[in-house]
């Protein structure tokens, strides 16, 4: 009897204000409403696999269960591709966003019919919804467990213009630029490589990133920093990429002299801009002599390159003279740099092509000898992270100046 009474009088205090099923139903409704409320869509910062480069995708969620997805990336041939497929928000180990009929833009990163066969990129197309606000949604890939963020795209911004801005920032900042960046966290300085491939290597760890119109979004926060920083934006003076959570954490470019020299060691080549308006009178005159000599035999001066003579077993620094047909003569130098200068001292040697060119075309050796100097470098690039174009000025002859830019 006593048991009978107790069983009915005991009442557990409610922790939640509604049963689990009701809360799940409400979660679906809330998330659907939030997705669909972005009339210009969301930018998804998509990563297929840990420690790989990410891609932006723009997604608009319709009220008819169809999502329109646009991408411009290597899988779309780097042109805009917009496709529609179905999506759903459902409960399955939490509230899940699923792109549940084929959409080639997003499923390109999950398709096992792509290389390597049976795997492809192995990316997710189903995501647990971890949290949301009106402007941001945090998702977690069901298979890979990668945090994937969606940010509301502002009204009025065309989708193509978003990708234009991403591609422009990538071109200005990462593509074809020296790989090395410096990560600053207060007094801590860390060398970072791999930026041009959109995978930063920091010590032993790798961090993929997605390029944004004015910054980057990392796949995961860099370990060991004073704050968990995922998003970085270009500073007003364009000198650094600053964390959105801490102004003390930022990426900046490598020292320009280090960048110029070490990039050559990594097989980068720098070409002088062969345009009279882009060089001083001393070099104009030297080049004119060589050009005239080449022209007498129907040849042209194609490039003057700062590079490594990779064929030589000692792999010395060289100035390369490329003439018609692509033949390059390599003239060897000892190159040293400080934080404020770089010095070229001729070794007096050259390869076979170098011998042929200097013996047959007047002015070649005057030109080569003129490069023996100490130089001041100044960035002529769009921002301070990238040294894609550099002004080079001889410290001993203010009329001996020229621009160089990355060559292939």
């Amino acid at each position, binding site marked *: 009897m006593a048991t009978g009474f107790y069983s009915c009088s005991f009442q557990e205090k409610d922790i939640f204000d509604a049963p689990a*099923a009701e809360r799940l139903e409400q979660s679906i409704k809330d998330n659907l409403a939030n997705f669909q409320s972005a009339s210009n869509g969301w930018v998804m910062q998509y990563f297929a696999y840990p420690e790989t480069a990410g891609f932006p995708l723009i997604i608009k969620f319709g009220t008819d269960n169809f999502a329109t997805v646009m991408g411009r990336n290597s899988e779309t041939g780097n042109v805009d591709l917009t496709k529609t497929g179905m999506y759903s928000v459902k409960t399955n180990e939490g509230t899940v966003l699923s792109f*549940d009929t084929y959409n080639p833009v997003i499923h390109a990163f999950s398709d096992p019919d792509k290389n390597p066969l049976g795997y492809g990129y192995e990316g997710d197309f189903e995501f647990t919804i971890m949290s949301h606000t009106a402007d941001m949604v945090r998702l977690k890939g069901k298979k890979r467990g990668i945090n994937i963020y969606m940010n509301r795209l502002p009204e009025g911004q065309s989708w193509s213009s978003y990708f234009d801005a991403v591609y422009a920032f990538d071109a200005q900042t990462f593509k074809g630029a020296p790989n090395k960046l410096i990560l600053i966290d207060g007094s801590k300085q860390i060398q970072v490589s791999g930026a041009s491939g959109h995978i930063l290597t920091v010590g032993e760890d790798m961090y993929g990133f997605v390029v944004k119109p004015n910054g980057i979004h990392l796949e995961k926060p860099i370990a060991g920093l004073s704050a968990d920083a995922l998003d970085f934006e270009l500073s007003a003076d364009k000198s650094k990429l600053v964390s959105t959570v801490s102004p003390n954490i930022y990426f900046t470019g490598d020292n320009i002299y280090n960048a110029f020299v070490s990039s050559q060691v990594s097989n980068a080549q720098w070409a002088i801009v062969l345009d009279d308006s882009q060089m001083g009178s001393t070099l104009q005159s030297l080049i004119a002599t060589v050009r005239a000599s080449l022209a007498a035999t129907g040849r042209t001066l194609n490039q003057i390159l700062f590079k490594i003579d990779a064929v030589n077993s000692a792999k010395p620094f060289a100035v390369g003279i490329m003439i018609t047909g692509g033949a390059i003569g390599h003239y060897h130098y000892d190159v040293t740099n400080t934080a404020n200068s770089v010095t070229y001292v001729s070794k007096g040697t050259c390869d076979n092509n170098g011998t042929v060119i200097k013996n047959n075309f007047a002015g070649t050796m005057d030109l080569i000898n003129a490069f023996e100097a100490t130089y001041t470098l100044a960035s002529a690039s769009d921002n301070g992270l990238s040294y894609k174009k550099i002004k080079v000025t001889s410290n001993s002859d203010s009329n001996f100046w020229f621009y160089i830019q990355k060559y292939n």
Partner: protein
Amino acid sequence: MKNFKLILGLLVVCTVVFSSCKEEKLGDSIFDTTPPVRNKFDQWLYDSITIPYNIQVFYKYEDIEASNQYNLIPADLGNSKKLIQIVKHTWYEAYDEIVGKDFLRAYVPRILQFIGSAAWNDDTNSYVAGTAEGGMKVTLYVVNWLQTTPAFLKDNYLHTMHHEFGHILNQKIAYDPAFKLISKADYIGGDWIYWNQQQSLAKGFITPYSMDKDGEDFVELYSTYINCTAAEWANLMQLAARTNVLYPDQVTRSNGQGRIKIEQKLTILRDYFQTRWNINLDQMREILNRRTNDVQTMSFNEFLD
């Protein structure tokens, strides 16, 4: 009297216990009981597949239904719309035509699932185009590759569908044990992958996979026979009759008995389907081939909302 007091006492106890709990009226369900909103395609599936055949079609990717053994992607919606019309025409209605609608409603797997990609095997040299699980679910892969040619449909779907349906039927009614005796010594389990089509035919098996075990041999023979044209079958029998075909061991060779063994098995198969299921194999073959050819000129409903 003593008994009366005992009964009275129990009644009091019961009354107290029952009355102590206030009767609660059931409220509304905590679950969403709103009927699902169906688009045109969903409505057609409900009216044309679910109601008449008792089959649920998963054309949208359902993680809990899909195999976690493979990397997979969802099926293309347009191809799913086409494929279900093809399945209906070449599978469901083929059986309707020969044995009536009740037959399929009783035996067909209850779930049909579409997957966009192939289910690639680990060696990535081969893929699974279709599977059936315990007579309950058939999964068709490579939906995103869909073509309407008879060769594509037979290789990727029709052979699988009829193979798996054959299993369901002979799990309901067993076939004559004499079948397994014909090639009893030659079933080799998983080693069938080392045999090619010509070698297996010459050994007395209609496909290499038939060599796995007699149950697979039975349904492979069934599916191959009804999916072949008469000319294609005649060609297979010619190959099966060849002598001197070198086997995978690189030592032994065929003795010309392959065709005889296959035709012995076919006799048992033919008798089984005729007497147990009232299905005439040659009639079934004519129906299937006609319907498979129809697909090339079918006018597909796009179910545009």
